[in-house]
């Protein structure tokens, strides 16, 4: 799909990383600019205000005491060894000079009393020999008596600081950008790899392996939720596929033999002499056989659909009413067969379920009981609420089922030897099991304690 040397440009990883780094870089640049302004700008402003205040002090000395007072003040200042400021004062006549700057670095202004800012450099002997160049920012003014005063402040310390800060910023910015790029790359690659793992799962599933599941990280983030949903979907799909396949297998397996039998019967008849009576008889038998095949086919189909969850819209349902109707429906049949039928149905049993399927399941249980319980025995039918679960039980005092066959009878098409003579597809209990599963319940078959026969219990979660 993606190829060529610049294919990586089109990956989400690269794009996300790039966007991430650019945003990070913009933010960092803003932050550094602010830092620079806050430190350097502040330093400059502070130096300037100190210079102005020194300048003002001297100007006041001049206006209060004239040139002599100013000279006095300057002399005191120049004698201090470690001082911040440098001075030069030239009287109008040129003879009175107080200075630590060898000469006036700039032309003094012509007009009087208008201080001007000047910047210049002076060369002076360094502390360890040689000389150093010192940048100075100064205020220069021509005083009323034509004398000139210059007060300067050293800028070298400040410049060094500015340089240091600039250097820090200049180094930090690219490192930050690089780190942002790396961070962006890793976080984007994390996201992309999570997406990639989902893609891989989907690809695997498309190539036919429905058992694949997307890895779930456990952090519960969006990717985990997506993976969980994907897995749930696959679970469902797999179940559907399995049930379809199962139905297909069952149809192939269990319809082939009756159909082959039918075909052979018909062919055998075709070979023999055909008179009206025998033809009629054969056709009648054929129709019966085909009806049986169709009934089995329908049972397989509905069982598969229940298994797949395709059938069954769950609605609020009164199970008590349903069971009472079932009891009423089956009671005469029991009585007719010489079986004592008792039922005990609690009122107000409600659940969310499919009425038709539940009725079919309960009817299957009662059908079974009636079929396999001999005359003179008893059938008990009950529906009760126990631990938030509805238990619908059909038990009989009939011969029951051997212990080792109890689980097996729920499987499809299992018909125990004794049952072969009875009508039925062998799907009845499998359907009950599927209906229980559809309702998130269980189907238990056990030996009845009270009646010593078979006890079949459909356990369904009650409506809360």
């Amino acid at each position: 799909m993606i190829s060529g040397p610049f294919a990586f440009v089109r990956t989400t990883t690269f794009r996300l990383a790039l966007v991430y780094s650019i945003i990070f870089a913009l933010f960092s640049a803003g932050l550094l600019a602010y830092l620079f302004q806050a430190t350097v700008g502040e330093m400059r402003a502070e130096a300037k205000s100190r210079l102005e205040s020194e300048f003002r002090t001297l100007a006041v000395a001049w206006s209060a005491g004239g040139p002599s007072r100013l000279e006095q003040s300057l002399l005191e200042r120049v004698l201090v060894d470690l001082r911040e400021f440098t001075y030069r004062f030239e009287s109008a006549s040129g003879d009175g000079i107080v200075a630590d700057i060898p000469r006036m670095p700039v032309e003094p202004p012509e007009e009087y009393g208008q201080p001007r800012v000047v910047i210049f450099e002076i060369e002076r002997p360094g502390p360890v020999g040689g000389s150093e160049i010192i940048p100075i920012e100064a205020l220069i003014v021509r005083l009323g008596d034509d004398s000139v005063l210059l007060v300067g402040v050293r800028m070298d310390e400040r410049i060094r600081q500015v340089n240091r800060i600039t250097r820090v910023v200049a180094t930090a910015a690219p490192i930050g950008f690089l780190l942002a790029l790396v961070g962006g790359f890793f976080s984007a690659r994390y996201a992309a790899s999570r997406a990639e793992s989902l893609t891989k799962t989907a690809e695997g599933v498309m190539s036919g392996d429905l058992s694949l599941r997307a890895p779930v990280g456990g952090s519960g983030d969006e990717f985990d939720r997506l993976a969980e949903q994907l897995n749930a979907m696959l679970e469902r799909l797999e179940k559907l596929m399995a049930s379809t396949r199962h139905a297909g297998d069952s149809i192939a397996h269990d319809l082939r033999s009756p159909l082959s039998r039918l075909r052979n019967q018909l062919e055998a008849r075709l070979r023999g002499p055909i008179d009206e009576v025998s033809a009629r008889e054969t056709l009648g038998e054929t129709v019966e056989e085909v009806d049986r095949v169709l009934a089995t086919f329908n049972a397989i189909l509905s069982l598969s659909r229940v298994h797949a969850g395709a059938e069954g819209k769950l609605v609020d349902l009164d199970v008590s009413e349903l069971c009472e109707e079932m009891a009423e429906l089956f009671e005469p049949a029991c009585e007719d067969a010489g079986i004592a039928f008792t039922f005990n149905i609690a009122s107000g049993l409600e659940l969310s379920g499919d009425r038709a399927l539940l009725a079919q399941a309960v009817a299957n249980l009662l059908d079974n009981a009636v079929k396999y319980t001999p005359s003179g025995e008893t059938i008990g039918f009950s529906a009760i609420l126990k631990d938030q679960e509805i238990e619908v039980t059909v038990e009989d005092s009939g011969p029951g089922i051997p212990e080792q066959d109890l689980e097996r009878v729920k499987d499809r098409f299992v018909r125990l030897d004794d049952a072969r003579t009875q009508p039925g597809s062998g799907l009845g209990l499998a359907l009950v099991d599927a209906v229980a599963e559809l309702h998130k319940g269980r189907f238990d078959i056990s030996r009845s304690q009270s009646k010593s026969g078979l006890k079949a219990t459909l356990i369904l979660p009650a409506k809360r």
Partner: protein
Amino acid sequence: MHVLVIEDDREHAEFIEKVLSEAGHSVETVDDGAGGLSRARQDQYDALVVDRMLPEKPGIQLVEEFRNGGGTTPALFLSALSDVDNRVEGLKAGADDYLAKPFAPEELVARVEALGRRQSSSEPPVTVLRVGDLEMDLLGRKVTRGEAKIDLQPREFKLLEYLMRHAGQTVTRTMLLEKVWNYHFDPQTNVIDVHISRLRAKIDKEFDHQLLQTVRGAGYCLQA
């Protein structure tokens, strides 16, 4: 009865025509949905038998359009889809009954005849049903035969009411389970037969003339 069969599978249509004709009904067949709809609108039929899967216009749509256009002829859906959901969908579209393929011929005849009867009995409000000397008072919930009063359980009453409303017609076991008990499944034991024989014991046992007949291989028929 005059029945319109809308079914695209030729063999199946012929089979339905044969079954209904043998039962004494006149049958016309149409093999596509659009044609079926215009025919159903043109002529006065007693019942429509509509396949759900039709070329050009699906059965559901056909019945819906027919009902929206004011058509009142009762309709029966035939479908290979037998789920309860599909049945409900079909009835919602305006059909009166629903029969899953494959079906027994007797079942089809019984249901089509029940449809025709439904329409004619829907006009005057009936409060008393009579079949021979058997009389059912729907308001007083009383049943008498000749001079004798017959006590029925509520379900037996409903069962007899259904049989009386369809007197002279064959009704099948699945129809009874559907219409009287409102359940759609195939009981494997003879539950319905036992209910019928109990009812028969109450309405026929003391009398010479038997009203409730068993129709072999099909169901039951209440007849004077």
